[in-house]
């Protein structure tokens, strides 16, 4: 009888040991599958999120055009152009609301997450040009431009067979109190097999006129897929944004003075140029009257003007010639450009909680080609599950 009991005890211990080892081994065996399921769930969520963002216009359908903008009026989130019969065509007004620096108002990350039902998930979104363009300024002489442009694919390889670079130079001069806004072009320069090319140009400044500011706009195209970006050759003010911030809402162009701007003397909008993916056009000729005045004073804090048909022109950049006081130099015809970050060739540099991805155990990255203002960009979403 006692021997039987010992046998049972031994049996129980053996079974217990087998059970414990099974508990440890079986989950490990199915861990890969569990991981797969988890990853798949994350992918499905990312796909649905991307679909909602890029294919839905949201509600109200014109939420990006609201001025003044109140994010609480947005009931459903989506970036698609409401009237487009095609897929993946995004509304530039909505995209611009993802830029935190937008003085016309932006939609917060938390609000978008709530509207998309992504509680428990983190995401970041960027809308960048389809290829990488960098430029080096080789000349410090303001009248003699010399730039080296380097165009690479996003993986760092040179673009074959070539990229074409068309350059538009916008510059201002002054003679006494009279200011002039000029345009000049260098077109049809191709990159070499390393993806590089050099742009040189000597500006023509009429006798008696003094060169003020210079902005150089590069339109780089690969098989007619284009990216537009701009830089300062000469800039009277240390920070270009100090003069005025330029934004577009629908057909309205808005200039505001950034809070940190110094000095704060009155400024007048003398002229305005619009740059699209394929054209450059004069948009406004100022009169130095109160209609074109911008100051910290009551009634002139914001300069806003509606340009009928501007939206159909697909504006990418607006460049303004502004009669303003440059620190230590008196009045000058200064140039400002916007909206940010269009001037860098991108639409959204980073929206969302980009650093949050670093602490995530698994992340999913998806990308799609999208059309904004008639130009191709790459929208990339990174999604991850947050720790609870």
């Amino acid at each position, binding site marked *: 009888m006692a021997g039987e009991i010992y046998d049972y005890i031994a049996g129980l211990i053996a079974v217990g040991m087998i059970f414990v080892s099974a508990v440890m081994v079986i989950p490990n065996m199915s861990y890969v599958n569990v991981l797969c399921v988890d990853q798949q769930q994350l992918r499905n969520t990312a796909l649905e999120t991307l679909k909602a963002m890029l294919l839905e216009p949201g509600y109200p359908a014109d939420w990006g055009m609201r001025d003044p903008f109140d994010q609480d009026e947005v009931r459903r989130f989506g970036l698609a152009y409401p009237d487009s019969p095609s897929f993946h065509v995004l509304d530039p007004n909505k995209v611009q609301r993802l830029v935190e620096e937008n003085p016309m108002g932006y939609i917060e990350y938390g609000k978008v997450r709530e509207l998309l039902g992504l509680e428990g998930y983190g995401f970041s979104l960027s809308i960048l040009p389809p290829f990488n363009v960098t430029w080096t300024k080789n000349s410090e002489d303001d009248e003699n431009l010399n730039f080296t442009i380097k165009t690479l694919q996003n993986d760092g390889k040179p673009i*074959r067979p070539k990229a074409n670079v068309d350059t538009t130079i916008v510059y201002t001069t002054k003679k006494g109190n009279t200011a002039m806004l000029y345009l000049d072009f260098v077109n049809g320069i191709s990159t070499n097999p390393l993806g590089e090319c050099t742009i040189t140009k000597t500006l023509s400044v009429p006798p008696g006129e003094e060169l003020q500011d210079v902005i150089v706009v590069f339109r780089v195209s690969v098989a007619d897929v284009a990216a537009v970006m701009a830089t300062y050759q000469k800039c009277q003010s240390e920070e270009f944004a100090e003069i005025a911030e330029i934004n577009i809402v629908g057909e309205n162009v808005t200039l505001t003075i950034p809070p940190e701007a110094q000095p704060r003397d009155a400024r007048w909008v003398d002229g305005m140029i619009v740059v699209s993916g394929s054209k450059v056009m004069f948009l406004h000729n100022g009169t130095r009257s109160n209609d074109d005045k911008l100051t910290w004073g009551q009634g002139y804090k914001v300069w806003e003007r509606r340009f009928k048909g501007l939206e159909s022109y697909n504006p990418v950049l607006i460049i303004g010639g502004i009669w303003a006081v440059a620190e230590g130099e008196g009045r000058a015809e200064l140039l400002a450009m916007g909206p940010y970050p269009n001037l860098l060739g991108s639409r959204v540099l980073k929206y969302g909680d980009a650093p949050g991805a670093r602490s995530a155990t698994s992340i999913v990255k998806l990308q799609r080609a999208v059309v904004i203002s008639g130009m191709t960009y790459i929208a990339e979403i990174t999604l991850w599950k947050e720790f609870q």
Partner: protein
Amino acid sequence: MRRTKGIDGQMRIIEAILASFVILFATTFINTFAVTPSSLTYETGELEKVGHNVLHDLDEQRLLARFVYNEEWGNLTAALMVCLPPDVYFSLTVYDLDGSVVNNMPIYYGDPEVFTTSSSVASVTYIIPGYQATYDPRILILQLVRG
């Protein structure tokens, strides 16, 4: 009378161990049949979406028809290269309605062998009805694979 009671306990142990092994083997066996989301399926599904999206985007910009009908194969290759993610290899073949290959030079990026050796090749069919009001359809077959 034979005494069997003394080995009853030992038999139970053997039974229990055998039963445990049976359960363990059964679990392992079932596990091999478990349907889990395959990353290959995801890859091809996602690549198909990416491929269609890029062709549609080029078509939207009115570039695709121009490249195909003007036989700008170099430009078409470059446009696909910049619009597709850098780690995606592609091979595009353009057919007419008779099923003849129209592109007289290969349109591809990456190692062409990868399309025959890889087990997860995504394939997208895209039809262009014509160019400049002329009905003359072209069928584009875009194959994609992660490099």
